[in-house]
């Protein structure tokens, strides 16, 4: 039985599309998990979900105009992330409500475009659930680029992000450019979400942002260890998810999320037992 599974995994790794899926998935997982820690602790984690819904509309728009979905989605979803932040900071709309507002607008717009245009519903709905096994070479490169950028930003702005996450007002008094750092954070989230919908789909991409972070938060007590462990959970979930989905012939995106859920449950129980 074990040999059989090992053979299937070896066989899977010989396919170029699986290799691309593993590489892109691991980069994506790292990017999502690094951003996720800050978003979760700032009570802003649902922004991933909201932006994924906006990307549903932008993909529909791109299909309508026969444009590249990523080329249109990246600037538009980036803009939506800034709108959410502006609504939260400058108006009387709370953060979660601002996300809900932009998110529902995105979904509604996507559905209207899909129903009026017709003919591309199958293409559009493939973005709802994603398909990591169909990522192209260029998408692998783009995913690697955005994840390396996220990692670089986290390293260079680590102390600024830590201060803002813990106490935004104190960070401002300390001379940290809170507004700028928050904008960088949501813009990177928007780019990551747009690329992530290919892997997990608009329905599940936010789980890649939230789950590794909250799993790591159950186990460790220092900030750096939390970021590192979230990365380990995220990458492991992608690798395990791809192979389990290959062996059991299940959708990869959903299996990756389920593996993350198992990690969370294990971490949660570990914390409960350890006290």
């Amino acid at each position, binding site marked *: 039985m074990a040999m059989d599974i090992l053979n299937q995994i070896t066989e899977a790794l010989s396919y170029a599309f699986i290799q691309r899926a593993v590489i892109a998935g691991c980069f994506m997982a790292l990017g999502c998990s690094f951003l996720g820690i800050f978003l979760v602790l700032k009570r802003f984690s649902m922004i991933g979900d909201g932006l994924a819904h906006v990307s549903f509309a932008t993909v529909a728009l791109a299909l309508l105009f026969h444009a590249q979905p990523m080329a249109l989605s990246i600037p538009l979803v980036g803009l939506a992330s800034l709108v959410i932040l502006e609504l939260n900071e400058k108006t009387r709309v709370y953060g979660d409500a601002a996300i809900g507002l932009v998110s529902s607008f995105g979904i509604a717009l996507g559905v209207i475009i899909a129903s009026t245009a017709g003919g591309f519903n199958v293409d559009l709905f493939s973005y709802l659930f994603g398909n990591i096994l169909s990522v192209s070479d260029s998408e692998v490169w783009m995913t690697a680029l955005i994840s390396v950028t996220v990692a670089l930003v986290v390293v260079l702005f680590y*102390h600024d992000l830590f201060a803002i996450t*813990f106490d935004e*007002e*104190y960070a401002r008094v300390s*001379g940290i450019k809170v507004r700028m750092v928050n904008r960088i954070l949501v813009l990177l989230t928007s780019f990551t979400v747009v690329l992530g919908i290919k892997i997990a789909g608009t329905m599940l991409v936010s789980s890649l942002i939230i789950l590794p972070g909250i799993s*790591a938060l159950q186990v460790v*007590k220092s900030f750096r260890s939390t970021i590192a462990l979230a990365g380990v959970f995220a990458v492991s979930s992608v690798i395990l998810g791809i192979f389990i989905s290959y062996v059991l012939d299940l959708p990869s995106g959903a299996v990756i999320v389920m593996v993350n859920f198992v990690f969370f449950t294990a971490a949660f129980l570990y914390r409960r037992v350890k006290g």
Partner: protein
Amino acid sequence: MRMIEVEDLSVKYLDIEALSGVTFAAEAGDYIGIVGPNGSGKTTLIKALLGLVPFTGKVFFNGKAFSEFTHNRHVGYLPQKMSFYDPRFPAVAREIVASGAYCCKKFPKRLFASDHSRAMEAMEMLGIAELAGRPIGKLSGGEQQRVLLARSLVHSPEVLILDEPTAALDPSSRETFYKTVRDLNREKGVTVLLVSHDAATIGEYAGKLLYLDGKVIFYGSFGEFCGSETMTRHFGAGQHIICHRH
């Protein structure tokens, strides 16, 4: 030496005037209790002094105009906390205290061994060195406040601004906290501005009281406060209760 000079400071939130025409000066080494009823503009005043809210009027720190003064390097700040930190926040007390050194760092910020040593020194000075490795969210309210006070002292500020620091503390922790701040003022010569709604308690520790109610009602020593006819008119019998406690 004048440490803080405020001339005709006013703050408006939308169309509502939160503070108007505030004028006062603090000498280096002063300990000023900023008191007044709820909504009197205490927090607004210190937020204006920290550059967190826009204001009109003039403010000088150590002889320098507000716009030329680098607050972050010279001012230590303890924000108002009505609730304690999330027990799940993944940071230990040492990390939080060391973050007080961010104010003096340029991009990309890096903490060195000397910063960590200063953080430990600040914790030792406040008697909380044994809390260094404990998660911030697992500490009691009094311990968290002392960790945050240590954070505000890491860069050896000349001015310490504290906003209702004892609001969430029990009476025993409250007294310990006030004594700690008084010692910092007396032994290190730090100029202290402490916001409180409890004029009686802060009167025991602070050298001067600044009583606000949308504007300055009174500014002077606690003794003068108790003898002030303005305050008698303002408080009625309440003034006797405040002053009688001493």
